[in-house]
């Protein structure tokens, strides 16, 4: 499975890609579109990315994790329009010992959140629309134009 995808993410495919008879532990993480954000009700959202850079960075994050721990890692981030309940990101990590699997899985999601050039535009049931910005005090900025980008 590609690291960036516009299709629904299949966790079992990620698990299959990392599991092997030597590895007795598999830790996974799913990030799922929530129905609320900052007290508002989310209707839908759109993920966009600087795709060549996001692809390269996500592959680099996977390699780093595999270098830091004795693990195999698969990860996928979804792009495009998503609804509440859809899987936005999925990670599967297999290892011989469970500590490595847990620690590496946590590492990968933290790195994805801080390093992947991916952006999220949320639309609420009150008609409002924002760019989500985890670094701003309000957590988001209003969308000016209706045109999507990149």
């Amino acid at each position: 499975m590609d690291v960036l995808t516009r299709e629904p993410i299949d966790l079992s495919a990620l698990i299959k890609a990392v599991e092997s008879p030597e590895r007795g532990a598999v830790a996974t993480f799913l990030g799922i579109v929530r129905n609320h954000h900052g007290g508002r009700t989310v209707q839908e959202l759109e993920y966009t990315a600087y795709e060549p850079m996001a692809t390269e960075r996500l592959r680099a994050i996977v390699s780093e994790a595999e270098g830091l721990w004795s693990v195999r890692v698969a990860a996928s981030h979804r792009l495009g329009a998503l609804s509440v309940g859809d899987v936005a990101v999925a990670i599967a990590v297999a290892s011989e010992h469970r500590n490595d699997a847990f620690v590496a899985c946590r590492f990968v999601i933290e790195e994805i959140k801080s390093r992947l050039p991916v952006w999220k535009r949320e639309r609420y049931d009150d008609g409002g629309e924002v760019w989500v910005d985890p670094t701003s005090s309000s957590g988001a900025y209003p969308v000016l134009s209706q045109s999507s980008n990149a």
Partner: protein
Amino acid sequence: MFARYADLLGADRLEVPSSVAATIGDLVTYVRGLPGGATLPFRPFVAVNLAQVEMDYMPKPGDEIAFLPPMAGG
């Protein structure tokens, strides 16, 4: 330009005269002077040819320069 920055500037690609941008810092100053650009931070994340660079980086003609809003994946 991506996401909110494209939105602020009303464009996802900009043509910039090479004379205004000896360094990335110069380029940021130029872009912040464009209509809608003043809201950009003084030191945004900038990538050149897919790699993040500092403000003193000197781009070459043909480089792909990207202004990246704070990342919000995952």
